[in-house]
């Protein structure tokens, strides 16, 4: 115990020991007190404050430090373990649960015992082996058990979440790319790399389900990479299903909700696919596309078709001969429409791998003969499926455990992707281009220089004792100059900070490629999504809030807009329908267009439907313009869809889209031409943080009107104001414009001296109609930083937020859309 303290004399040691004991008395008391606090919290299922844990940690640390100085090895060892475990609790790696508490408490008892012994004998000897072991045990157990409950605030978790979601998006993008360019092996490399990353980080964070799925995906991709085989749609769908599953797993972990029900189904499917690969090492994958296409063609020609898949043993020699034998035998009893791989391919390579041969033959109701013909040596499995129009294959013969019918996987992947639409994900962290940060850093550096300039000015002013006019004047000039550079810098900083919130819209655009792919598969339509302006940047919050309305609009376009292939052919259009999604900047707003080359919206049908639904009277309908009629589709509960499909037409209509766009102060415009397509134009402000606004005075208060809604400003003489149905109205260029008083909307205290003379009017619009807002006075246009109102004001209609003016006054920001709804 005292081995390394030879240099220390016995009296020195005694003196230090007594100091040590005095110091430690306080520390031990802290430990004791805090442990009791913990015990209470644990038994009452309360929470333990971080400061308590921290206090214990520091106490243990201090005792350890002092004890090691005197060479009290046992105390050092014991406190080291305590410190260790407390640190883990502090870092939220493990929870302070009963098991851990018990170990800590026992260790503390032992520690006290050691101190007693130290007082008596001046040595800390005693057996601490048992405590050390129980520390080790409890740690080993706990790290494992607590790994299942993820702490959302864990910094690693946030990082993992952001990265993984990004990787999932990338994966979807690349896989879509691969689906179109199957000859590009390098895409497989990319997919493999992404999957590998997801697998790695999921493993690190012990998201074991995601790790498992990614591992399976990696196998599939690795196989495709090493064998050079192209993956057909069946495998691609499986990969899509798998990546959706990973997203589900990660999100459900993040939201602390149970894993999706279908996880086992998808996992089973993946495992099965993997076992195909693992069993065969390198099975030959027959392109399912070709088969499916041929089946469709044959069935539409009125044939009854059987699809036969035969798997040949991997170590069979002369496989092409077996294939020939099968072909000959089948040819003797029925017609063969298709054989894949063809004899030529089979002859070329004498495979050292599994081969599955697919035959499409006429169904002559002679399945027994067929079975007899193909049940020959070397065939490990065979499968006979009757093919019907809707392509849902009905297996009729010996089932093969390893090749599930393709329709299964489709429904699996669909069910996942559908459930995905409900969990709208929001990640509060944001990736910022480091250049933007650099700019900010530079600006803040210049700010420091400016500050120095100001203190220099102050210094000069202080020295100016004589108040010499000339000197003062020069100081004022410098002051003026510096102030204006401060102003410039402030606006530059403001722009740069705003820039950090700007992200390219590419992220959600890419997601839609996947959406369109899924929809076209589901609807059996051939649709391409063309995107433009993906690098257009806008506020992250807006990008997030756009994802849902855009999904609705794209689904609408695919479902109602784009016709099916026959209809398009009849109309003389290209068989492939196209949905255009483009983004561009226009001044301070961004324009997003969702257009399709489909059948367009017939305004007469809209009108008819509106009258049938009782939304309109026939007389009123007479007076409506085409644009007015089209705007009807934004009304709640309006749908022209003849049939409800799985995708749209269930009442979640354009009104929802419009409301969502309105909630980010945007407006929707619609343009359509029957026969050639429809286009929806969304105009959205660049950011929600700062707006351009027109400041006005009403009843002595300042209000800001977002500039996007302002059409023009008028002065109106009272003689020009008419009363129509009790509403004040003016005639503006031949159209009636109703006037509204703000006090009628937001119940402000009305001015005592009612405005008598000429009225100032701001004409505002929501994209569909215009109204005139009566104001007392105009201040001017300014940039306003929006401060959101607290929850207490959420029920106040017509106000979206507040802002602070240059002179410190508060200006309320009006919500023109809400105001127009109110009247």
């Amino acid at each position, binding site marked *: 115990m005292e081995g390394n303290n030879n240099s220390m004399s016995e009296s020195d040691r005694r003196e230090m020991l007594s100091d040590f004991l005095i110091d430690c008395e306080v520390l031990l008391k802290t430990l004791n007190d805090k442990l009791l606090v913990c015990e209470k919290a644990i038994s009452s299922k309360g929470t333990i404050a971080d400061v308590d844990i921290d206090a214990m940690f520091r106490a243990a640390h201090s005792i350890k430090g002092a004890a090691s100085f005197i060479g009290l090895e046992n105390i050092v060892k014991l406190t080291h373990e305590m410190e260790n475990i407390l640190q883990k609790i502090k870092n939220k790696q493990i929870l302070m649960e009963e098991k851990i508490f018990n170990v800590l408490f026992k260790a503390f008892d032992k520690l006290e015992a050691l101190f007693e012994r130290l007082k008596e004998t001046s040595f800390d000897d005693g057996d601490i082996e048992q405590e050390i072991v129980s520390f080790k045990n409890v740690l080993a157990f706990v790290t494992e058990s607590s790994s299942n409950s993820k702490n959302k605030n864990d910094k690693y978790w946030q990082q993992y979440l952001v990265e993984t979601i990004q990787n999932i998006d990338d994966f979807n993008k690349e896989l879509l790319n691969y689906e179109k360019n199957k000859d590009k092996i390098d895409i497989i490399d990319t997919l493999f790399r992404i999957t590998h990353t997801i697998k790695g980080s999921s493993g690190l964070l012990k998201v074991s389900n995601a790790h498992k799925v990614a591992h399976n995906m990696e196998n599939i991709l690795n196989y495709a990479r090493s064998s050079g085989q192209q993956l057909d749609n069946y495998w691609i769908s499986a990969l899509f299903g798998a990546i959706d599953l990973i997203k589900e797993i990660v999100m459900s972990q993040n939201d602390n909700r149970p894993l999706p029900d279908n996880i086992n189904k998808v996992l089973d499917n993946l495992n099965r696919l993997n076992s195909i690969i693992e069993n065969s090492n390198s099975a030959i994958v027959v392109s399912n596309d070709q088969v499916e296409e041929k089946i469709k063609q044959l069935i539409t020609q009125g044939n009854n078709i059987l699809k036969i898949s035969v798997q040949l043993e991997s170590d069979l*020699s*002369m496989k092409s*001969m077996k294939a*020939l*034998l099968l072909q*000959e035998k089948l040819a003797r009893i029925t017609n063969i429409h298709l054989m894949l791989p063809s004899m030529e391919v089979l002859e070329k390579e004498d495979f050292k791998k599994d081969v599955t041969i697919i035959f499409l033959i006429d169904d002559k109701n002679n399945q027994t003969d067929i079975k007899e013909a193909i*049940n*020959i*040596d070397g065939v490990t499995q065979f499968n006979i499926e009757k093919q019907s129009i809707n392509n849902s294959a009905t297996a009729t013969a010996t089932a093969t455990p390893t090749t599930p019918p393709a329709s299964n996987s489709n429904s699996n992947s669909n069910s996942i992707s559908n459930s995905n639409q409900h969990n709208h994900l929001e990640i509060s962290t944001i990736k910022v281009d480091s250049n933007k940060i650099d700019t900010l850093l530079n600006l803040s550096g210049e700010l420091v220089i400016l500050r120095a300039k100001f203190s220099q000015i102050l210094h000069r002013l202080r020295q100016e004792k004589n108040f010499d006019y000339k000197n003062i004047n020069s100081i004022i000039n410098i002051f003026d100059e510096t102030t204006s550079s401060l102003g410039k810098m402030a606006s530059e900083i403001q722009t740069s900070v705003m820039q950090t919130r700007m992200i390219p819209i590419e992220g959600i655009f890419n997601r839609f490629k996947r959406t369109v792919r899924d929809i076209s598969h589901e609807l059996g339509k051939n649709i391409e999504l063309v995107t433009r302006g993906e690098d257009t940047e806008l506020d992250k919050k807006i990008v997030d809030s756009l994802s849902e309305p855009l999904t609705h609009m794209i689904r609408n376009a695919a479902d109602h807009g784009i016709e099916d292939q026959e209809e398009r052919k009849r109309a003389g259009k290209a068989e492939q329908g196209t949905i255009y999604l483009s983004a561009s900047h226009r001044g301070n707003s961004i324009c997003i267009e969702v257009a399709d080359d489909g059948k367009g919206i017939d305004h007469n049908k809209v009108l008819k439907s509106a009258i049938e639904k009782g939304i309109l009277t026939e007389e009123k309908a007479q007076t409506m313009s085409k644009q007015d009629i089209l705007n009807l589709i934004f009304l709640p509960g309006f749908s022209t869809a003849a049939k409800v499909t799985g995708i749209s037409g269930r009442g979640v209509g354009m009104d929802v889209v419009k409301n969502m766009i309105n909630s980010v102060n945007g407006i929707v415009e619609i343009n359509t031409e029957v026969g050639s397509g429809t286009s929806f134009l969304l105009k959205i402000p660049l950011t929600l943080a700062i707006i351009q606004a027109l400041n006005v005075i009403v009843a002595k208060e300042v209000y800001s009107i977002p500039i996007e809604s302002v059409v023009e400003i008028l002065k109106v003489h009272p003689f020009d104001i008419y009363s129509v149905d009790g509403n004040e109205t003016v005639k503006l260029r031949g159209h009636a414009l109703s006037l509204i008083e703000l006090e009628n909307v937001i119940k402000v205290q009305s001015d005592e001296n009612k405005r008598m003379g000429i009225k100032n009017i701001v004409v505002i619009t929501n994209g569909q109609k215009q109204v005139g807002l009566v104001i007392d006075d105009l201040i001017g246009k300014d940039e306003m930083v929006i401060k959101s109102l607290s929850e207490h004001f959420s029920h106040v209609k017509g106000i979206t937020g507040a802002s602070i003016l240059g002179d410190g006054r508060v200006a309320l920001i009006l919500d023109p859309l809400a105001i127009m709804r109110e009247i």
Partner: protein
Amino acid sequence: MSKQILIADDAPIIRLMLKDLITPLGYQVIAEASNGEEAVEKYKEFKPDLVTLDIIMPQKNGIQALAEILAINPKAKVIMITAIDQKEYLTNAIKTGASDYIVKPFEEERVRSVIRKALGDL
């Protein structure tokens, strides 16, 4: 009554090996032939359930014999015995109507499986 098999091969050792493989399966080797001509004759005589026919045989080769046997009985089950380098002959045999084939040198398990499957017993 157990199913009957005719073995046709010019090499006695092959006939012996096949016989030793077939008999334990419960089939009866009812006759043997050492050339194609003889094989056709024996087929007419015994009407066996299955014939194993070597492709390369003197006098009448296996493919000719196969054609003649199928002429007698279009549903005759004939297993060709072939070496790994006789792809062309085998292709012909398959196109002529052979039920299956066995590759020399024999893999015993495969021989058993070919014969049993051809007879519909597996």
